[in-house]
């Protein structure tokens, strides 16, 4: 009896720990200055920054690739960051439920800058403003690549393999 009870508690504890570990990330609201800070991160790390929104179909299609890359390179100097372009007013109603439902594990930001014209050129003059768009950079090594379109899983994997320290 006590053995069963012990096993039961062990199971419960395990389930709890597992649920903690896979809990979806929170979404941090940022302004442009914080995005710029991230873009200028001096570390010898490959940053993969994907710009998306809950209303953007091609973004949602490619999101599992970024999530898979996050899981695969978790213990390496590779940071996958998803920056939502959703309006800050939609954070509670749309973004958080989306993040919970998909159980997203990558680091999540929401950029609260409604006027793209004030910041798009400052982060990437080549960017016309369409999403999805993805940036790859390692400032320590002076590496940078920008893609303004949907990306395939293979392409993402190739770029990470190419640049990861």
């Amino acid at each position, binding site marked *: 009896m006590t053995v069963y009870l012990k096993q039961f508690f062990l199971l419960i504890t395990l389930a709890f720990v597992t649920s903690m570990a896979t809990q979806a990330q929170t979404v941090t609201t940022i302004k442009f200055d914080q995005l710029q800070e991230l873009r200028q991160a001096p570390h010898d790390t490959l940053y993969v920054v994907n*710009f998306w*929104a809950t*209303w*953007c179909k*091609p973004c949602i299609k490619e999101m599992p690739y970024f999530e898979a890359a996050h899981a695969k390179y978790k213990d390496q100097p590779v940071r996958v960051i998803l920056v939502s*372009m959703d*309006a800050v*007013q*939609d954070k509670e109603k749309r973004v958080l439920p989306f993040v919970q439902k998909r159980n997203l594990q990558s680091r999540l930001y929401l950029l609260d800058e*409604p*006027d*793209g*014209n*004030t910041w*798009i*050129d400052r982060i990437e003059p080549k*960017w*016309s*403003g*369409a*999403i*999805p768009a993805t940036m790859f950079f390692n400032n320590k090594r002076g590496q940078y690549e920008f893609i*303004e*379109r*949907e990306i395939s899983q293979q392409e993402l994997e190739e770029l990470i393999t190419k640049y990861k320290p």
Partner: protein
Amino acid sequence: MKNNRIPFLYMACLLLVGVLMAAIPATENSGYQVGDTARDFKLKNVDGKMVSMADYKDAKGFIVTFTCNTCPYSVAYEDRLIELHNKYAPKGYPIIAINPNDVKVSPKDSYKHMQVRAKEKNFPFPYVYDETQEITKAYGATRTPHLYVVQKQKDGKFKVAYIGTIDDNSREPEKVQKKYAEAALDELVAGKAVSQPNTKAIGCTIKWREA
């Protein structure tokens, strides 16, 4: 002497190839820049008739707007497009809205769906379909909505005067402070140069036909 010339020509050819190759990526995604001459088109409107800029004898220019049924940003701007047209068509700058999206990639951007949406919103401007995406590529539109204000010249050509967005807040029209497109149009109507001819906004990618 003669022998020396061959390597030189060979090098020159290599150099030329190199220059051409370097130029390819730049021309690939280039469309019109402000100051360029925009081509006319002949595209099917939701009423079944073909529309060209040349049809409008009295127009001073156009607000050529790449937009669609499905992009939430396009939808958010529908009422503002109607207002823009109603304000500037009498001043010589009507809107021509062009749907650039491929129907296979985005089924709800079909011609039939365009007809439904145009009727629901009672668009006072043509809403035409760029089925081959030829015009969209020529203009270099990349997102929806994406505006090109063109001004008719004395020789009848259309010069691009403004490329960009409508205003500074897609989500909340009541919080708009900068009406970028209107500012450009006001300057054109007043015979002035456009002081901010390029603006950017977040939008949906154009749904290109898959090869």
